[in-house]
């Protein structure tokens, strides 16, 4: 028996892998599993799944390509990375669609099985790229992964087609070997998932193991790599996507407020997973109502809030448009409500599976009349938990609809989440009205005698928060009517009085303006920065990565990121005025910069990208360097762009 010689192991600090294949090839699952293995191993990581809007786009075509990118490192990282070090391409279209993102020297692992004349043509290749020298800049491993998979699982008696389906597990096994990933989690996962189909289960496990052993034994791969666990704050961690974290945040908020959560929603990409997730948590008193349309989704949530539940509706931009009138009603009713907008490319149907943050102005102003509401945005997948709790806290405390903004990048992307200690989360006070809050005096016309009666005024406000009482039906003596017509201050009857309307419009605005939000802390390690970069939402990662790269060059730049878009933190104006230049990178055409310019009269410089993709770290670095150059600040010494090796972040 020959013993496989131990192959050398090379240490690397970080790796970017992209799995790409046809949308039916199971690339999302492969990426997910590799991510879980990596998370459990203890690397820091960030992921970026990308899939077609069609469920099954034509097989073998470029529009049908689905991919999953994972960046993992032995240090903390902020983005899924710009350029993959390794591309796994399961067919010609996957190669063609992704090869341009690679840098010279990158590794390409290709499944040659589908490189037939027909499939090459479908992908738009006139000649087989594996034959010529068009891929000469890369380290190409052309392997018949499908053929090897079929061979590996032949004992299970599956049809050729079914056997070939395990090819994603074969490639996962190979990559798991290459990067020394722990494999038990994947074997457990497959065992559970296919528990009822033993032949499929066994085939997948066999394919996975075969891929792993192939890596160990083949001469094609001379070395494997090790990416050491990253240092991270002490604690317990799990990997989590934005939609899952957001859902958990809603469940947690219900517990913290001791209120049953009611989600009214209509399925829409990329928000549907929130509906799916919450529908599993009835044990937490969560009710989910899959409504007939977007409007009924928010209608049901408003009704539930009126009845004393924590009403939530989740959607994406097109749904927010449909809910606008009902959001105006909620502003008028002054009831707690959380509207979750998982933004996607717009306008109209736009790019359902791509990301964008172009709903900010819609969130701020997209209703008739003066209809202000607080706006909260999540900045990373795990942060969706905290953002959701915060949105619920504001909604309940101030009796107001709150817009919670996420986006497609956060929704489906994932990162390690340091698990919060539930007992340490501060409670949310629902504080229902329990009795009369007002005394009316009436004079008897005949006797002149004054009588006093205690009554309930639904629009009598808390002097500090300006919140009105929340009096769900069921309490005697608090019967009252609310509605979309303007209400008189205090007693809340219909009022068309001009002065009252003026007062109520200003009061609703003052209530939102007065929402307490924490002051911002600027990140400016040297304290010498003359330029501030400010963002909101999912640009947090790319901006942070760009800032690190700029600082690595010895340049100073300050960074601040907004969780609260309405109201802005109290110290924001003062911060903006401290810097000679304020740069605002956004995935829209400059919506935050418009707000900052209008409110603070600062010459905020808008830098935008609306490609449906997050900013790359390199792209962000370039933006910041250009803006610094405008200030006359350039890198001491060489001004060359850092090589990939130098710019490790």
């Amino acid at each position, binding site marked *: 028996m020959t013993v496989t010689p131990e192959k050398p192991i090379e240490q690397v600090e970080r790796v970017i892998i992209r799995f790409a294949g046809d949308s039916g090839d199971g690339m999302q699952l492969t990426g997910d599993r590799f991510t879980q293995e990596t998370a459990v191993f203890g690397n820091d990581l960030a992921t970026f799944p990308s899939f077609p809007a069609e469920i099954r786009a034509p097989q073998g075509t470029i529009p049908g390509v689905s991919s999953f990118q994972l960046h993992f490192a032995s240090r903390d990282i902020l983005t899924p990375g710009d350029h993959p070090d390794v591309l796994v391409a399961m067919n010609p279209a996957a190669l063609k669609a992704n090869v341009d993102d690679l840098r010279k020297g990158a590794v390409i692992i290709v499944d040659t099985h589908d490189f037939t004349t027909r499939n090459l043509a479908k992908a738009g290749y006139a000649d087989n790229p594996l034959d010529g020298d068009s891929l000469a800049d890369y380290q190409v491993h052309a392997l018949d992964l499908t053929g090897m998979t079929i061979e590996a699982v032949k004992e299970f008696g599956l049809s050729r087609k079914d056997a070939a389906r395990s090819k994603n597990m074969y490639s996962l096994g190979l990559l798991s070997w290459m990067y020394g990933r722990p494999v038990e989690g994947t074997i457990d996962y497959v065992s559970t998932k296919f528990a009822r189909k033993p032949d499929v289960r066994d085939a997948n496990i066999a394919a996975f193991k075969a891929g792993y052993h192939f890596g160990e034994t083949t001469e094609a791969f001379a070395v494997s790599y090790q990416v050491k666990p990253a240092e991270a704050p002490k604690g317990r961690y799990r990997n989590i996507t934005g939609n899952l974290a957001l859902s958990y945040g809603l469940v947690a908020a219900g517990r913290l407020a001791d209120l049953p959560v009611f989600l009214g929603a209509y399925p829409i990409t990329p928000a549907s997973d929130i509906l799916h997730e919450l529908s599993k948590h009835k044990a937490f008193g969560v*009710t989910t109502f899959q409504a007939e349309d977007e409007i009924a989704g928010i209608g049901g949530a*408003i009704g539930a809030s009126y009845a004393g539940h924590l009403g939530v509706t989740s959607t994406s931009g097109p749904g927010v448009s449909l809910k606008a009138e009902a959001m105006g009603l909620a502003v008028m009713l002054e009831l707690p409500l959380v509207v979750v907008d998982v933004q996607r490319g717009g306008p109209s149907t736009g790019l359902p599976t791509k990301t964008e943050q172009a709903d900010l102005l819609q969130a701020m102003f997209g209703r008739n009349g003066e209809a202000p509401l607080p706006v909260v945005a999540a900045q990373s997948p795990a942060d969706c938990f905290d953002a959701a709790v915060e949105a619920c806290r504001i909604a309940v405390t101030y009796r107001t609809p709150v817009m919670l903004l996420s986006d497609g990048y956060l929704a489906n992307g994932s990162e390690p989440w340091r698990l919060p200690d539930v007992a340490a989360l501060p409670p949310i006070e629902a504080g229902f009205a329990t009795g009369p809050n007002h005394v009316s005096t009436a004079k008897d016309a005949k006797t002149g005698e004054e009588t006093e009666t205690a009554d309930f005024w639904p629009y009598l406000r808390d002097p500090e928060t300006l919140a009105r009482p929340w009096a769900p039906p069921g309490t005697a003596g608090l019967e009252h009517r609310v509605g979309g017509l303007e209400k008189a201050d205090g007693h809340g009857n219909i009022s068309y009085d001009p002065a009252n309307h003026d007062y109520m419009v200003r009061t609703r605005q003052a209530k939102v303006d007065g929402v307490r939000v924490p002051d911002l802390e600027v990140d400016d390690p040297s304290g010498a920065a003359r330029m501030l970069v400010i963002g909101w939402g999912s640009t947090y990662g790319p901006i942070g990565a760009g800032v690190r790269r700029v600082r690595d060059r010895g340049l100073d730049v300050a960074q601040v990121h907004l969780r609260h878009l309405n109201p802005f933190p109290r110290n924001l104006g003062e911060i903006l005025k401290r810097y000679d230049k304020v740069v605002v990178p956004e995935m829209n055409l400059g919506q935050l910069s418009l707000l900052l310019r209008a409110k603070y009269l600062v010459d905020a410089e808008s830098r935008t990208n609306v490609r449906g993709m997050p900013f790359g770290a390199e792209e962000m670095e370039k933006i910041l360097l250009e803006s610094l150059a405008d200030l006359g600040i350039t890198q001491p010494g060489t001004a060359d762009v850092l090589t990939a090796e130098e710019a490790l972040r």
Partner: protein
Amino acid sequence: MTTHTTVTDLSTPVLGTALVPQADTKQTGKDFTSDQEVRWCPGCGDYAVLKAVQGFLPDLGLRRENIVFVSGIGCSSRFPYYLDTYGMHSIHGRAPSIATGIATAREDLSVWVVTGDGDALSIGGNHLIHALRRNVNMTILLFNNRIYGLTKGQYSPTSEAGKITKSTPMGSVDHPFNPVSLTLGAEASFVARTIDSDRKHLTSVLAAAAAHRGTSLVEIYQNCPIFNDGAFDAIKNPDTKADAIIPLVHGEQIRFGATLEDGQGHKCLVRDSGGGVRVAEVSEVAAEEILVHDAHNPDPTLAFAISRLTDSGYLNQSPIGIFRQVLRPTYDDQAREQVALSGGQGDLQALIDGGDVWTVDA
């Protein structure tokens, strides 16, 4: 008379108000009257309905604080302001969705929706049919005046074809909805029709609707003297109403018109060879051919056929009464049951800690 078993064996209550707390003391109509001045036009049919409801609610015997009226937009949607219960005057067409949220959230509330022909059948048509198919425990009062009143007189989805209004100077070319046919088509479990001016009938229908567990849809013919006066004259005029009203009473022969010696009308309904229902002279058909009204028939086909006897133009003829009253599981009972079955004791820390967790002890 055939008897029907209910569609499923319901473990939940079968009375609409079963879980709503009862009032401790006897209430009066005054208890349900708010301090707000009623602002409909003089002679509006809405007044009569309001009076009837205020008169009926004390008989319902529920605690006032456990009653909620939700409305949309339109003349009739001002209704909640005039009742001293909990209430919400919401936005155009959306009341059924809001009421669905309320009814699902709270089993201890008696939920009522007040809507009109424009509110329920035009802008809110989608919510109406979905509330009915779900069978959410609530009572929908659909005030049908066959016109847009609040916006001053445009034709509505129940206006007769050819109607001349401000927006249709040459006559409307829209085909009207028959609200009863529509709601039966949506598989409503309780569908009735009554008339604003017939307080006794209106009250009896309200009582049956409130008692029904599931969505009760009550179409109320309501006169708008300002923009559509006389739309229901044929069924209100003492000279013509005997021929115009086809009374539906569960378990009784469907007969109308001038009375014969047996005290009942000379006209009746019989099955038509085409599968529908037609009007016949009692003297010309065998007694067993005369339809006996069966509101509890799980199959809505016959109820639908009867609903088709409603004139779509001037109302020379219209069946009045409870078309259909069957028990089937309600959305809100089942939704609450799923939550209840799940125990409500979820461990939040365990949820958060689920999945593949690793520990860093730096």
